[in-house]
């Protein structure tokens, strides 16, 4: 159904533009997870990207821009088929988006092999930052380990000696714990691995209360995180044992957890209160447009659109792909996170913060920076990247 609509819209757009304008238009395929429980992440990323396009007057780099938004349904095989359609049937000039790493790993190779420029909006799995890096791929997000590493460093700096770590029992959960341990040198009292999609954490919370660690670190994306945060507060632990997290407490889960999450901490490269002009403008425009507070996914989507806009202007259009890639690499735009440059593997070199959940004066729940953990953080895989 979605495909039919997209096709109809595409046909209409082509018809309206006419043959003369077609050379001066830009077609971007935008892949995001927009169904199932994690749909809210894709929604943030898409809304951020579309806001960036809208602010450029619908013309990124002065070219009439058409964004074909496609739902990957968090199914790698289905995503692959849809991406092939975008590349071959729709002949998109660029690809952008992708929330989840498993989808990214499925679609990355075909996009890169077709020599299509690909701007990642969220997922940053280690192979793509390392051995499988490509001159066609840029990301405005982060390498996956970054936020976990930041929390490990923060826990170490805060002088926590005994910690409990908890994550779902699957690859990303294990990677998260490994990332956390990279900078945390204290004692891990217990490692709790829960079932993916677990709803009730009373058993784990009881263990945490019994062990009385200095703090806990957890990675519980989506609905799992909402459940955990609510139950953690209800068990009276929220004020007692510091709660460090990654991808658990952010603007996608705060509307559901509300007061239960107040004061809980997370690692992030961006927060709505970061003090720079581009960010102030973005947050105000986003909330005016969509009526909800943006999360990091939205900021990354917005930055992706602005990066494309600035690079196209610098390269003088889309005609010379090598010039465009060189322009992208210079990141000639004002990022909403302030400092932003690309490393040799086209992953960002950026500051990483500890943020905490607060209730803003207007009643919205958002994250706010507490302190900077890493200045110009470089990911751990860049040395494995050999571009040719």
């Amino acid at each position, binding site marked *: 159904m979605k495909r039919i609509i997209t096709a109809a819209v595409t046909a209409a757009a082509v018809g309206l533009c006419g043959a003369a304008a077609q050379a001066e238009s830009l077609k971007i395929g935008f892949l995001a997870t927009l*169904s199932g429980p994690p749909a809210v992440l894709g929604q943030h990323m898409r809304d951020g990207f579309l806001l960036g396009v809208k602010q450029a007057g619908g013309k990124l780099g002065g070219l009439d821009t058409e964004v074909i938004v496609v739902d990957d349904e968090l199914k790698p095989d289905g995503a692959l088929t849809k991406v092939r359609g975008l590349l071959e049937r729709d002949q998109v000039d660029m690809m952008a988006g992708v929330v989840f790493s498993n989808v990214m790993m499925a679609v990355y190779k075909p996009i890169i092999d077709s020599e299509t420029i690909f701007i990642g909006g969220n997922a940053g799995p280690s192979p793509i930052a390392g051995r499988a890096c490509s001159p066609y791929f840029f990301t405005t997000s982060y390498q996956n380990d970054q936020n976990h590493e930041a929390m490990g460093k923060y826990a170490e700096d805060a002088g926590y000696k005994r910690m409990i770590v908890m994550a779902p029992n699957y690859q990303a959960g294990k990677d998260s714990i490994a990332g956390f341990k990279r900078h945390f040198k204290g004692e891990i009292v217990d490692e709790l691995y829960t079932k993916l999609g677990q709803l009730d954490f009373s058993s784990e919370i*009881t263990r945490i209360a019994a062990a009385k660690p200095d703090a806990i670190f957890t990675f519980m994306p989506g609905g799992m995180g909402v459940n955990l945060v609510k139950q953690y507060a209800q*068990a009276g*632990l929220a004020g007692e044992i510091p709660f460090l997290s990654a991808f658990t407490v952010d603007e996608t*889960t705060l*509307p*559901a957890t509300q007061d239960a999450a107040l004061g809980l901490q997370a690692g992030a490269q961006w927060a709505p209160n970061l003090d720079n002009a581009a960010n102030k403008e973005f947050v105000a425009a986003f909330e005016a447009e969509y009526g909800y507070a943006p999360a990091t996914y939205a900021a990354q989507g917005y930055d992706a659109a602005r990066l494309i806009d600035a690079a196209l202007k610098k390269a003088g259009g889309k005609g010379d792909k090598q010039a465009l890639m060189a322009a992208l690499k210079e990141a000639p735009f004002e990022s909403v996170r302030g400092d932003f440059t690309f490393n040799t593997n086209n992953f960002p070199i950026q500051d990483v913060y500890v943020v905490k959940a607060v209730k803003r004066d207007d009643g919205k729940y958002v994250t706010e920076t507490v302190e900077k953990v890493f200045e110009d953080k470089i990911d751990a895989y860049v040395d494995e990247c050999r571009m040719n």
Partner: protein
Amino acid sequence: MSATLFAVQTLNGLQLGILLFLIAAGLTLVFGVMDFINLAHGVQYMLGAYLAVAGYAITGTFWGAMLIALIGALVVGLLLEALIFRHLYDRDHLDQVLATFGVILFLNEAVKVIWGAAPLTLPMPDLLSGSIEIMDGLLYPVYRIALIVTGLAVAALLYVLVSKTRAGMLVRAGATNAPMVSALGVDIRRLFMLVFGFGTMLAGFAGILAAPILVVEPGMGDNLLILAFVVIVIGGIGSIRGAFLAALIVGLVDTLGRGFATDIAKLLLSPSAANDVGPAIASMLIYILMAGVLFFRPTGLFPVRGG
């Protein structure tokens, strides 16, 4: 592994068991009495939670939300019965599975269209929002204790309804031999509708009770549905008593397994291996239990007599 820790984990297990029982009770009645596989039962649990959130937005109190959600769940259940399920009773199980699976997809998508994809929350009633310190440093929410008490009360009520009343007698008779009950002049269609409506309301009730401690999101019923099927298979299809005891067993085994499997594995293996093996075993335990029950007692632990 102190005695208090064990006691608290047992309480946690009981509470999960009670929640499972409320869902499984309706499922086992519908399956046992009507020989109808209703995969959409989990969605009705989800609807209960969403209707409670909507009811809270209207009335501003938990109790008002509960009333609206209970009525709403019943109405939706009866509508589904009249529009879809009624036409499937005489079809085979595969048709029922396909049609009710379609209902899952439809309703999961429908709540997303109406309420959005982001998770929602239902505040606890003020009356029950306190907590008791049952272990050093651990507060146990009064709400969770109330949930256990409510579940036990519902179980007692169901016991009386099923074993002491005329309607209950018909239900038991229907579970044993539906055509015979029909032949004796009982309007089996009406009985079915009654049972179905009641089962739906129980699932909705479970959803309302779960909403303040669990997240309200599209697809929230799908995981619990699988557990509820495990419960009714272990307990014996059609048996309320079986569903009750099996729900408690599953709740306890799952919670205690998660609580202690890694510790037990550490006695035998190196810590890092135990961290891999413990959680894996803990998540398999209830399915191993189910396989064991199916092997030794194929009709479940507490089968309906006579069938």
